């Protein structure tokens, strides 16, 4: 059985891992896993398998929802950030929802900070393996059964009948503010608090189950701010001129997608090279539209941007592409 430190060491060793060619999801991790697909959870599996932690990790996963559910089924799942530690596997939902079914992404917790942020080690973030600092869009975490794993927190992150403590006090205070519930703030989740939670859930269109979890908490945060729907993350505006750095990241990909749209494609400018973007690029370059960026497509791209036609999409190809995108001549 492996350890937390062993798992983290394996994850750190992956920092800097990219995709070849960019946007292909192809690298040592997906090769090891068995197919080129979204590789955030494959990275977790890779780290676990190389640190004797695969069984502790509940096995080998590519599908984040199934992985989170496996932790839940094993009694090793916790909603929200409460009680989170290094080595925990943290799951994200970029829409700001709080349910396992909405999970989009996963990372490994390297460090925990008292301001409520965490440092993570993540695969497939901006098409690379990178270290991130996160605090938002977190659904919850699973605690692998490492050989040196700490015990799970005393709750699963939900407040329900018979829950006690400071979180219940805060809930009661908030219910009194938002719903004028008139609850005694005693930290005891009794029938009156449960009724108030149900009333709150009904008013704000939530499932009235009397259990206060992440979705209810997100709605409470919005209600306290005078809003009637959860406060969802808003996208940042796009940047302007691309840095000609040879790095094919989301900004370059987004600029490419915008250029392809000017040539008649109808792509969502999401900064990710998926099959639709790949096909649009292939159509523009006049090669077979199979959705896979292989040597033929890369050579056609290199011809288009004036790079050496070796079929290998490297930094020079990207730099020339960035230059043309900036000039509006791609």
């Amino acid at each position, binding site marked *: 059985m492996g350890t937390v430190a062993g798992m983290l060491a394996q994850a750190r060793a992956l920092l800097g891992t990219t995709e070849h060619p960019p946007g292909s999801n192809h690298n040592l991790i997906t090769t090891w896993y068995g197919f080129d697909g979204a590789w955030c*959870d494959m990275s977790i599996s890779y780290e676990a398998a190389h640190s004797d932690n695969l069984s502790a990790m509940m096995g080998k996963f590519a599908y984040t929802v199934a992985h989170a559910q496996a932790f839940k089924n094993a009694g090793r799942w916790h909603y929200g950030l409460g009680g989170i530690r290094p080595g925990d596997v943290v799951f994200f939902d970029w829409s700001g929802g709080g349910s396992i079914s909405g999970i989009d*992404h996963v990372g490994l917790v390297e460090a925990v900070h008292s301001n*409520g*942020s965490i440092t993570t080690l993540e695969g497939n973030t901006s098409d690379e393996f990178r*270290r991130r600092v996160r*605090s938002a869009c977190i659904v919850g975490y699973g605690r692998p059964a490492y050989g040196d794993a700490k015990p799970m927190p005393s709750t699963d992150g939900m407040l329900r009948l018979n829950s006690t403590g400071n*979180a219940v006090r805060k809930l009661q205070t908030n219910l009194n503010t938002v719903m004028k519930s008139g609850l005694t703030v005693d930290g005891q989740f009794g029938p009156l608090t449960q009724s108030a939670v149900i009333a709150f859930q009904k008013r704000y269109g939530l499932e009235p189950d009397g259990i206060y979890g992440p979705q209810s908490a997100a709605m409470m945060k919005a209600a306290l701010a005078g809003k009637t729907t959860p406060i969802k993350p808003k996208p940042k505006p796009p940047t302007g001129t691309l840095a000609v750095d040879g790095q094919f990241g989301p900004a370059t990909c987004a600029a490419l997608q915008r250029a392809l749209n000017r040539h008649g494609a109808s*792509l969502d400018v*999401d900064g990710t090279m998926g099959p639709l973007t790949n096909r649009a690029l292939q159509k523009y370059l006049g090669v077979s539209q199979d*959705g896979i960026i292989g040597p033929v497509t890369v050579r056609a791209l290199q011809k288009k941007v004036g790079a050496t036609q070796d079929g290998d999409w490297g930094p020079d190809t990207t730099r020339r592409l960035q230059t043309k995108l900036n000039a509006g001549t791609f």
Partner: protein
Amino acid sequence: MKRRNLLAAAAAGGIGAVLVASGANAGTIFADGSATAVANPALAADDTVEPQGGAGLFDVDLDQAGVSQSPDVVVTGDVSVLSEDWGF
């Protein structure tokens, strides 16, 4: 244009949720949020997301400047665990 955050998720990072199977024999499945969003009308209500590049895409994302990407650096926090009541 109307789109949805799932698209941004693809840009922000690994979007495991668009995979429909797990396991090494699941076949070649790509993470293109476009197809998923089109297939699900519930996802068509939000605004188009355009990535800023590098760090996260959302107004709630923390600044990633100064975050070391060196595999030789070990990041440690100022606490070993967050309070169980955190988030409520």
